[in-house]
């Protein structure tokens, strides 16, 4: 039989609104220690910044310690000494090929790097490339106004470094078996003192090419302005063997 008195509202509704939703659906996470809110992209940017700071710091130290001699006296001894300093700082950094590329861009495009000096910048870049984990690297130097010297210094066997743009003097000197590809022009003393490996220059090359080179090959897609005193090795110009060949005297090829 139907009840004549409907149930009171109070017997259906909870006594106070606070108890309406008592179940915390996130209860298990009550004790989870929330880290600083941040999206993964922010973390990536932060870690990249930290690496760049370390790379920049190493470059500044090299400038402090070796710049004077390198700027005024480019002698093989000073280059070796500067490279040893660069090596010391680079070995302590955990970086990738992308970080080297970022550093190249930062050389001219940021106020945080005090000055770009072609010699030390090249030595430092060479050390970074030689100690990178990657075997193959591409550096875009085409957008730099200054041509960097000494790129590819002592590039070891098993490494391949491709440069997009022109390079300055002393490109690929002391090469130690690596492969250096310049998609542009290179200046004087390219491949000087190299012991092995291969240098490919897509365009033209300056004077003293291969001075005192002890081995390896230099391929030039454009024209060779002049050869140095070559001890051993081969130089090709547009697929034609230039040295060893008829050229007997340095710098009088043209």
């Amino acid at each position, binding site marked *: 039989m139907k009840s004549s008195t409907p149930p009171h509202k109070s017997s259906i509704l909870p006594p106070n609104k606070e108890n309406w939703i008592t179940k915390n659906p996130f209860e298990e*996470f009550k004790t989870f220690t929330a*880290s600083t*809110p941040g999206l993964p992209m922010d973390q990536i940017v932060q870690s990249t910044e930290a690496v760049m700071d370390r790379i920049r710091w190493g470059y500044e130290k090299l400038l402090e310690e070796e710049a004077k001699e390198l700027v005024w006296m480019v002698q093989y001894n000073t280059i070796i000494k500067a490279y040893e300093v660069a090596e010391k700082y680079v070995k302590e950094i955990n970086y990738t090929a992308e970080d080297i590329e970022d550093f190249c861009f930062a050389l001219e495009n940021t106020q945080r790097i005090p000055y770009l000096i072609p010699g030390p910048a090249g030595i430092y870049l060479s050390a970074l490339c030689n100690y990178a984990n990657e075997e193959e690297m591409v550096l875009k130097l085409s957008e730099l106004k200054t041509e960097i010297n000494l790129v590819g210094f002592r590039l070891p066997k098993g490494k391949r470094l491709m440069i997009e743009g022109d390079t300055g003097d002393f490109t690929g000197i002391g090469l130690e078996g690596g492969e250096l590809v310049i998609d542009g022009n290179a200046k004087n003393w390219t491949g000087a003192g190299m012991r092995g490996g291969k240098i490919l220059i897509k365009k033209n090359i300056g004077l003293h090419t291969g001075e005192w080179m002890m081995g390896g090959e230099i391929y030039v897609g454009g024209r060779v302005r002049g050869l140095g005193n070559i001890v051993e090795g081969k130089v090709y110009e547009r697929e034609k063997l230039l040295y060893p060949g008829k050229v007997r005297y340095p710098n009088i090829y043209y």
Partner: protein
Amino acid sequence: MGIYRFISEHLYFNRPDMVIKGERFNSAILLSLLTGLKKGKELIIGEPGLGKTTSAEYVCSLIYQFPLGVIWGSEVSGHPEQTEEKIIGRPDLGKLNRGEEDVVWTNFSQIPVKIVDEINRLPETKQSMILDGVDRGNWEYLNEMIINEEYCLFATANYQDGGTNTIIAPLVDRFDVMVESRHPGANLSFLVGKDKRKDHILRHPKYEKDLYHVLKSKVPYEKKTPKIEEVCNAYGEYLDEAIGVKSFQRQDRDQIRSEMERLELDLDASAFTRMLLAELSFCEWYGQKRIVENCEEGCHYTGYLCRQIKNCASNRLPSSIKQYAQGLAWLLEDSEIDIEHISAVVPYALGHRIQWKDEILSQKERSKRDDPFPIFLAKEAVKAVSQRYREQSEHLKDALAVGSKIFLGGDLEPLEGDHPIYVEVKKDIDARRS
């Protein structure tokens, strides 16, 4: 694990097809074992003659200590003329002639092991009747009722052919898991054919007769149960002596279940499951997934499962996932349910429940695969969600932790993120605040 090993080495030859924490298992045996232990409901699909029913029979015989003959005698076979009287119970005709009403219960309704062979050959009304009974544990006939305290259901289904009905979606949803009993490969199949007498390992004529005698006796069901257990325990001792397999007595099974119940999801497992459920139920446009509504153009959430499926995940899904993950964690002797347990069971809990959109089906139906299509699609879905979870697990856990703090009265703002789960968290917080 002893039972699993015995079945895979002596009774049901098949290749392992799933790897969990470095251990390889055959999904049909493993999930049947978990179904038996967790009082679950399993749908076993496959080609005819590939061991769908026998795998369930072996597992049940060893877990519940019933000789194979009794299990065979209590199975319901699916055919269109099947009646309630053959499935649940019939009037006691002798008493009816004397003007009294009494019910003679079938073995199927009385024993905890319920196996329905070829369920998709039963008309939908009969399918529903069985699933209702198993859902509640109550079997009603005339004005009488018996209550099963312990039960599990195994139903087998052939792929669609001329003689099959469909299992309609609401009924399919009641199954906790779906698994395929697969062809074991030519070499193992050759061995199966050679060894015809392996069933006899689990037969015992004396105990079978004793059990039949108890089951058909006219004493109330509650008084039969201890007697059934007594015979089952004796059979269990025989199994231990004869084949060296330790089967489970009633108190063992209860103990195992209480140990399983104590296992909780760790934070990653919980967050991952929430993420999965969000993708299977979320619709920004219409508030939730509904089978009658289509995704709208211009929706932001196009990269998630909600865009690929038609229906909404039911509340039975998380329950099935948790039950089976608990079972698996217990079996592997882990102290918590972690993301690997969840990822292992989800494809089997999801495969039969998702209705994929036609374009997804046509895109993937010719993909190279080892699994039946629904389980393959579910495994792909789990892979995709796992990838998304890996990318933002910390952020999601942060969002859930912040949610908890807000719920407890903290003055914080919910965390944003590009996934439906963040919207769901926000909705719960808004509901709390309003």
